[in-house]
Structure formats: C-alpha cells, structure tokens
C-alpha cells in the first residue's frame, strides 16, 4: 500500500485539481482518494477535473475551511488537498446517507447499519458529514446525534471512528461532502478501511477551566437556558464583564466554551478528560446560549472554559510527539489531521499557526493530509464523540 498527497492554492478549480493530482499520478493509478476543497471553488468543477486526472475512482471528503499538507497550509478558501491510495489489500467500503436533513440520529443509524453489514469489527471508519444545516438563521447539523445513531446502527460491532464535520469557510457559510461518486449537501459518508489498517489517534486540546463546577439546570437540545438556576447568558456576561446584547453574540465562539469533565471530577486537570462545546450564539431575549452540539443534558456538570492559545500550542507539540512515540516502529502509511477552524491564527489570535507547529513536530516522512473543520470526531474512552476546539491527529498504519 502507498499514499501520495497533493496540494494546491489555485484560483481556478480545474488547475487546482490538476496540481493536486500531479504527485498522485506520478505513482500510477490510485484506487481511491480523499479530497478537501476550499469553499471558494466550485466543488463539481473541482471533482470533475480531479476525476479527469485520476480516473473515475471513488473520492471522499468534502469542503474545507482550509487545507493542511506538508506542501502548504491555508484557509483563504482556495486551498485544496488530495490523498491518493494505492495497492490496498481490499477496496474500502463506502456508504452514504443523504438524509441528515430528516434527522441526524436516523441518518447516523442508517450509516451504522450499512457499516455493520460489512462485519467491521476492529476496522477503522472515516466519517465526513456536512456541518451546516441552514444559514439564515445559522443552524448546524449536530454531530452528536449522528454519532449516537451510528453506534445504534452498528450494534455490538467495535470500530475506531474518526471524522470531521465539513465547512466551506471560517464563517460557517456552507458545507458539502464528496460521497464517493459526487458532491452532496446535508449528507454523511462513511469509509470502512481495509482490515490491515489500524489507527493511532491523539486529541490535541487547548482549553482550561476558568470556573467552578456548574450544573446545567435547563437545556433543550443545543440550547442551554440555565446554569445553576441562572440564565446562561447572565452567567457568561458576569464572567466576561460584557453585555452580550450589545456585542456581536457570534464573538462568544471566539472566547469561551463549556466543558464537561469525564472520569474523576476532582482529579487534577487533564486536558484529555474534557469534552468541550463551542458556543454558537447567545440569545439575550431568552437568556440562553446555543452550543455546537446538543449532547449536554439536564443535570450535566460543566465548567466555563477559556481557550488558551499557549496551551493549544503546547498541546499540539506534546500530542504530536506522543503519537510519534506510540507509532514508532510501526508501518505508518498516512497521517490525517482534522483541525477545528477556530484554532487557525486568524480566529484564535494565536501568534503562530498551530498546524505549522504540528508539521514541525511531526518528524516523519509519512504523507500527511488535513483540513480545517467544523467538528472533529475521535475516540474518547470506549466510543468516539464529536469534539469542538480540538485537533485530531491520526496515524494509519499497517498491521495489528
């Protein structure tokens, strides 16, 4: 097996596809590919040009707020990255649902059932789904019911699920996916990798708790109304010292998250113990805040988390070194970097690009492809969960 990666930041979709395909074609005929395409490109034109170069092979992936490869990093909207896979032991099984609009959990179940039919025990499954459900007002396809449904459909099978909610840009304007045959919206695609491919994953964080524990006392879906019996907006206003009614409520997503600590609540701080939820919106009229995901329930104990750029950089450095240590001596084939768009310097205000830090720390010849995403999905304890404000670095290697 071999993997080759191409990158481009080209003005025109056809030229971008050709540039990305160049290094892949140089090795021969790839059997399938992963493609991430900046939202300023016409995805159909890009896909058509890519297939003209690589042949009519299955392409999965989708829109990307930006692309990350060794050849380049960027999130201006014109970046594209493609990985071509060669000489695989068996072709990957690709299954699609186009029913996210009808209900994410049901769509996830559909995917999970299709995956279960392939006897996937022990397999690595890649999942890409379109994050944006509607733009005015902004509504997302939450990843947590999708993942919950996926596991429901999967039954007792055990897989390593890694994935991303795609975005066309940093402003959550739109999203779409490549589903193996074409481009679709409100859809999700799962790719069951061959049995000989295993995954090692590191979740890279960057948030620290800045409050005592608070209980969610009123929640409906992704809408958190009360924390410790007080309107959630009021709690955050008090902490931030600002009037959320007067500032752009969207700015909240640049400032704070809500974090749920798993395991021993009173154990010393461990970034891996937290599942963080970005705040999509604040609604002064209802006193509620809208989270990216609807998976915090009534009674959940959470903390207000501050995004800490220094910690983020440190986490990237340590996590990357750690995954290299864990995969040392293994037959690494390709690395996949799923990076929350909010971590890009233009949004986080970090003095350096954390994706650059990852690349510098990832001292390996292994091909690497990544995207700036809306949601990251990675194993947390026994099952995978959608995560916010994280980066998920995965190394796919051969063997058990």
């Amino acid at each position, binding site marked *: 097996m071999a993997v080759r990666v191409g990158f481009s*930041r*080209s*003005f*025109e979709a056809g030229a971008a596809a050709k540039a990305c395909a160049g290094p892949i074609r140089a090795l021969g005929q790839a059997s399938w590919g992963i493609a991430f395409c900046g*939202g*300023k*490109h*016409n*995805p*159909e*034109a890009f896909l058509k040009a890519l297939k003209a170069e690589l042949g009519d092979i299955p392409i999965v992936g989708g829109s990307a707020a930006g692309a990350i490869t060794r050849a380049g990093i*960027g*999130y*201006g*909207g*014109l970046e594209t990255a493609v990985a071509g896979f060669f000489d695989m032991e068996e072709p990957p099984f690709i299954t699609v649902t186009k029913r996210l609009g009808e209900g994410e959990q049901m769509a996830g179940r559909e995917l999970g059932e299709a995956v279960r039919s392939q006897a996937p025990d022990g397999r690595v499954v890649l999942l890409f789904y379109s994050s944006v459900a509607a733009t005015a007002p902004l509504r997302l396809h939450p990843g947590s019911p999708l993942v919950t449904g996926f596991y429901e459909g999967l039954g007792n099978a055990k897989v390593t699920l890694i994935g991303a909610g795609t975005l066309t*840009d*940093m*402003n*959550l*304007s739109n999203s779409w996916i490549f589903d193996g045959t074409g481009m679709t919206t409100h859809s999700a695609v799962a790719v069951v990798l061959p049995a000989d491919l295993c995954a090692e994953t590191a979740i890279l964080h960057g948030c*620290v*708790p*800045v*409050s*005592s524990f608070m209980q969610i006392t009123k929640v409906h879906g992704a809408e958190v109304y009360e924390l410790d019996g007080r309107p959630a907006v009021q709690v955050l206003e*008090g*902490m*931030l*010292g600002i009037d959320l009614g007067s500032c*752009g*409520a*969207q*700015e909240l*997503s*640049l*400032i*704070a998250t809500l974090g749920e600590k798993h395991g021993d609540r009173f154990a010393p701080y461990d970034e891996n113990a937290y599942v963080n939820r970005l705040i999509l919106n604040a609604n002064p009229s209802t006193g509620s805040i809208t989270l990216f995901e609807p998976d915090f329930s009534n009674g959940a104990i959470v903390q*207000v988390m*501050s*995004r*800490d*750029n220094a910690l983020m950089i440190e986490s990237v450095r340590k996590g990357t070194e750690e995954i290299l240590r864990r995969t040392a001596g293994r037959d690494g084939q390709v690395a996949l970097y799923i990076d929350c768009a909010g971590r*890009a*310097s*233009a*949004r*986080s*205000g*970090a*003095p350096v690009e954390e994706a650059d830090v990852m690349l510098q720390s990832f001292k390996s010849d292994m091909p690497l492809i990544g995207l700036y995403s809306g949601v990251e999905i990675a194993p947390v304890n026994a099952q995978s969960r959608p995560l916010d404000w994280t980066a998920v670095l995965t190394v796919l290697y051969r063997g058990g």
Partner: protein
Amino acid sequence: MMIPADTPMSHDRLVQELDYYRRECNDLGARVLRLQEEQSRAFREARRSRTVARLIREAYKLVDRTNEIDEIGALMLDIIVNNTICDRAAFLQRKGRDEFAVTHLVGFEDERTPTTLVLPSAPLFFYTTSQTPMESPASELTRLLRLPYVLWAFDAGSAFALILGNRSEGNVSRPFEPGDQELIEGALSVYADIVYRKRTEGDLRAAKREADTARAAQASFLASLSHELRTPLNAIIGFSEVIRDQILGPNGKLKHQEYAAHIHDSGTHLLSLINDILDLSKLEKEGEIPLNEEGFDVTGVVDRAVRDALPIAQEKGLSVETSIPAQLPQLFADPRRIRQILTNLLSNAVKFTPSGGKIVLSTRIEDRQGLLIEIADTGIGMTAQEIPRALAPFGQIQNVYSREHKGTGLGLPICKALVELHGGSFEVASVPGQGTTVTIRLPPDRLVPSP
C-alpha cells in the same frame, strides 16, 4: 480567633468556606478569561495590521511570476483573499463614465457571476456595515457581490477598482472600518503598479522584437545585395586589369589606359565596401562569422600588416615604427582576422595622418590582462563626441572625414566587433590635432604558454 488544627469544622463553616473559594475561583477565572480574550484580540488586530505589509510583499513577488497581465489579476485576488480571509473579491476596470467591467473575481463558486457594475460618481473609498443605509453606492456595491458587507477602492488614474465582501461581521471577520482604507488601497495600488509595469515591459519587448526583426531584415538585405553586386564587380575589376595592363596587346589611346585604371580603382573600392558590409552584417547576426582559431606568432602577423601599409605611408612621408617584445608568446586566435584588424587600423592611421607624421604599432603582455596591441598616430584626431560615431556602423559614412578621405567608414566597427568576437576589448582615445590611439586587449587565455 484561631481554630485549633484538630477541631472539626462545622457544616456551616465548610459551606461558607466552599462558597468563598467558589466565588474567588470564579472571579479569578473571569479575570483569566478576559485576559485571554484581550490577548487574543490584540494578536488578531496585530495580525490584521501585518496583513497590509504581508499582502504588499507577497503581491510584488508576482512581478517575477508571470508576464501575463490577465493572470496577474487572478493571482493578486488569491493573495488578497488568503490574507484578508474575505468571502468574495473582485477587480473591476472603468469602461465608460459610470460603467465598470468585472475583470477578475473569486468566491462565487457555482453562482451566477456579475460582469458589469453601473456606478454613478464612483467613490475612491467606501465600505458598508450593519449601520449603513442601503442607498447609492452601498446598494450597487452590495448587489454586485451579493453580500451585505463590502469594502471598495477606486483608483481614477489607472481606472482600476477593487471590492472585497463578507457575509457577516462576526467570527473571523470584523466590521469594516476607516482603517481598512490602507489595506484596500494598498492592494489596489500594487495591482495597478504591477499591471502598468507589465504593460511597459510588454511594450518594450514588442519594440525590441520589432527592432530585431528590422535589423535582421537589414542585415539580410545587405548580405544578399552584396552578393549580387560582388559577382559583376569581380568581372569589372578583372576586365579593367586586362585593359589597364594591356594584357591582350596595346590600347589604342593612353586615355583608354587611364579610364581602365579609374574603373579598376572604383571597382576595387566598391568591392572593399561590399566585403566590409558583408562582414558587418555577419557580425551583427551574432556568431555568423566563424573563427578559425590556431596558435600563431603575433610578430609575423604584425610584420605583414605593416608591410602592407608601408608603401602608401612612405608615399605620404609618414614614419611607421613597431615595438614588439622579443619573447612574445603565441596567440590563439584567427590569424586572418587579426591581420584584417591590424591592416584596417594601420590603413586608417595612414589615411588620417598628415605628411611628416608618425605611426607606432606596439605590443606587450599586461599582467592579468593578456595581450595589448596599440596603434598610435599623430593624425588629425577626433573629438570625444566623434569617437562613438566613428565606432557606429555607417557612422563615418556621414562623417566629414569620409568625404575627404577614401574609405568605407565601416573599418572601425568591424575591427571592434572582431576583437570582441575574440573576447577582447577595443578602445579609442583621440585628441583633435594631436592624433588617435587605438588599444586592443586580448584576454590572457588567448596566450599560449611557452613550452
């Protein structure tokens, strides 16, 4: 009051203490949160302010990337969106009083793309925010990009305009503000500057191509003309020699002999002129004169050239001296061309030196500069302004000396070109009324080391 360490705390006391620590924890956390946000905001603003410098720096690199003006617009928009992270951007060019044509645009994906903008009284700088009333020019500009928040600049001098647009004022974008004038005008002026530079370069390249074509046509014409003239001239010269020298028997009249001598002189002069023109046209088409290079004795070539010039020099009452070191290494060059150079220069010296004057031909080895050959005369000389004219092809033909003194006027340019073909240098120094010195330097690698 101190509480002894082993006294268990009451429940109320514990709750009170826990409340205190929670409050303190939340206050400290809130301060950390605000500090983090202030730091991030400062970094984001610093990043934006660096954007202008970075954008201009990256944009100027386009000068070396392409010569295609049309391609520059696309590459420039790529740099702009990459640095500003805007949702859409377009370059426009004013075509009429109120009409602009969209020349390049990015961010429309598969949507219908705009091609023109009608904008009466185009402002030089403009932007919209959520507070901007939807009246002209906001209405036209937001309609063009189909986005609510736009940033616009127009450069009336170049007739170029640039517009950027965002879907929202939040997240990675912030509301446009007066301070963004520097960014958009900087980007627009760099674009206009590069386009102007590329147009000028294109014009220059076209002019050079035309000049090269014209020069090649001229050389080609001269070459074919010279070939056409040389054949009949050889016949004229040959038959005039027969008549002049009475090879076929005595001429009837002395005048026949005299006229035949005139025909012969004129023919010889014309042939020399044609040969020079032919040489020059070959030299102008670089590389068309092949050098038959070999190692040879410079002294011998100098002697033969001097011997050629001596009869006419003596006839004019001129002294010709040579100064050649005894141990001169061999020269690796084309001996026929070197002799042609020396003969030509000596002939010039004889021609322009009045009776009683002196001509000195000297050679020497110069440290690290190779072989130096110098021909100095005490002739009429030239002014500083006349030297370049004498060195230019056909320059001397229009010169007053050429009318007074017989010659093609192409000798000096040919000599200079031949010396340069050997990798050498050719200099002329002259003072009117005192004389002229021509200095030839041939590079050290042309000297053959003595065995």
